[in-house]
């Protein structure tokens, strides 16, 4: 009899051509998609060239997205992007996304239907965990890994143990996926799920939008997780059926599957969360934040730059202005989100609030450009990391929060929730 398996184990087993796998086992598995960006792909491309590779396993299964430092922030970035562009031309990659079509990779791939339920995906970017929200097994790897995967169509994995996190209860107002995942990271720590698969489940998840699910899976890596998966359901089906251009498979954990740990979280007690410097696990509920003046608010990134995030920010910002001497930077994550936000009139609200609206880019999240902090400056941001120097100067500070809190904080000039604006 085949041992009962979790959804993560099932996807890995199927792609390794095995009936079953168990935690700890090292496997070689076929991948459905290989992803690289302007930071990681250039090293991979040079590695491929170094060993004399002249073919790729399948051009249609390689996705290249220049998103971190584009539109080119400086000459060196221009060189990196050119290297990628030339590679895409040479190998005739159908999924190379030039500026004007691109978006932040982890918002773009699900939106374009490139990642589907049941897939096994490797990406040379740690936030590749995002696609777990679609019921895919997807994980971040390094440049050398994708170089090898682009040649062979395979990658090696150590089958992870699975940690199950059950979310129960109704969310409070202004609490979304960001708060659920920040709360979880706060509880288990930045290495709480090290080497493990995280599986998010429970009544709260069943009622959570796809955008919020993507936010949760995105930040699984911030707890050290290998992936952050959510079993497919009605919401998944609704999201993928209009986008998919190839067949896909819904996989589920068996009832008897073994988990290394099960954590139950009572969502009714969770307020909007704020992660203080310098770790994503350093969280406090919004009511315990105190007086933290800010210089900048950023709403965007692969974590929170989707349509729902922008709509939430607009609900808070409507008829309000950001505080004097405070910068508000809003970055829709893809061209499609950008266009839709514009159509819905969100840009009017943002412009009236004295925000700047940027073209899609990872930009400030990793201190690249488009909102770098000076010494002593402080930002509240919907991004994913608040390590020392993450958004600029090593003596600047980053506070992580959801879009409603970031928007409200920009109006208040200090960290605070929408409730302080009587919302």
């Amino acid at each position: 009899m085949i041992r009962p398996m979790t959804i993560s184990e099932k996807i890995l087993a199927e792609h390794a051509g095995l009936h079953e796998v168990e935690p700890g086992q090292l496997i070689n598995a076929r991948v459905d998609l290989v992803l690289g960006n302007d930071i990681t792909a250039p090293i991979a491309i040079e590695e491929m060239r170094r060993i004399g590779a002249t073919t790729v396993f399948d051009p249609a299964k390689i996705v290249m997205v220049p998103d971190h430092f584009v539109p080119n922030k400086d000459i060196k970035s221009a060189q990196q992007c050119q290297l990628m562009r030339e590679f895409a031309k040479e190998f005739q990659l159908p999924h190379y996304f030039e500026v004007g079509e691109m978006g932040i990779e982890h918002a773009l791939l699900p939106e374009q239907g490139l990642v589907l339920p049941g897939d096994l995906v490797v990406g040379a970017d740690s936030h590749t965990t995002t696609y777990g929200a679609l019921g895919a097994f997807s994980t971040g790897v390094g440049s050398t890994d994708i170089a090898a995967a682009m040649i062979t169509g395979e990658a090696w994995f150590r089958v992870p143990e699975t940690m199950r996190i059950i979310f129960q209860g109704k969310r409070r107002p202004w609490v979304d996926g960001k708060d659920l995942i920040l709360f979880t990271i706060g509880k288990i720590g930045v290495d709480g799920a090290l080497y493990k698969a995280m599986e998010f489940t429970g009544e709260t998840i069943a009622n959570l939008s796809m955008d919020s699910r993507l936010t949760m899976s995105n930040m699984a890596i911030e707890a050290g997780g290998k992936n952050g998966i959510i079993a497919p359901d009605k919401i998944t089906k609704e999201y993928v059926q209009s986008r998919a251009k190839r067949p896909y498979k819904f996989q589920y954990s068996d009832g008897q599957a073994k988990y290394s740990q099960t954590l139950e979280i009572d969502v009714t007690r969770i307020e909007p969360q704020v992660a203080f410097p310098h770790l994503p696990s350093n969280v406090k509920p919004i009511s315990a934040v105190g007086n933290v003046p800010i210089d900048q608010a950023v709403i965007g990134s692969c974590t929170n730059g989707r349509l729902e995030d922008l709509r939430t920010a607009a609900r808070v910002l409507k008829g309000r202005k950001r505080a004097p001497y405070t910068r508000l930077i809003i970055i829709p994550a893809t061209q499609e989100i950008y266009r839709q936000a514009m159509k819905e009139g969100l840009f009017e609200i943002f412009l009236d609030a004295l925000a700047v609206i940027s073209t899609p880019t990872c930009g400030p999240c990793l201190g690249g450009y488009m909102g770098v902090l000076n010494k002593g400056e402080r930002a509240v941001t919907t991004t994913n990391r608040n390590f020392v120097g993450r958004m600029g100067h090593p003596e600047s500070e980053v506070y992580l929060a959801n879009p409603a809190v970031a928007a409200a904080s920009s109006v208040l000039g200090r960290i605070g929730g929408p409730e302080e604006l009587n919302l």
Partner: protein
Amino acid sequence: MIFKGKVWKFGANVDTDAIIPARYLNTTDPVEMASHLMEDIDPKFIEKIQPGDIFVADENFGCGSSREHAPIAIKYAGIACVIAKSYARIFYRNSFNMGLPILESAEAVDGTQQGEELRVDSETGAIENLSTGKTYKAQLIPPFMQQLIEAGGLMSYVQKFKMKA
């Protein structure tokens, strides 16, 4: 391989932004990457280390981004190997893939101070603190990963076993 070198000790959760800040990721030049190693912790760090020095760190070394620039910067700065209580998983696989020797030993980390000298045998996992005379044992490396190391990293492995001549 046997390494002998001076210890640079770090705490828990050393992230890849600390190892090499993101503002320097717009390059594929390993020497340039190495020149920014640990710059935000100590701007003069690269001038203070000697080739063959060893990094010793607490839990979850290399957490954060997937940037292979991090192990590359460490290797090209001349650091011989890293010993930690545990590693963030992408950093762990990157190190094997590109050939930076890394070992896991909680005891060795607890028994080692900044500036002490270690002798490390990366094959047997034997770690000797030459300053105190104490010896430790690192966790064994799984056979597949030994194979990767023996082949000279993942790309050489692919070249050897997976590519058509």
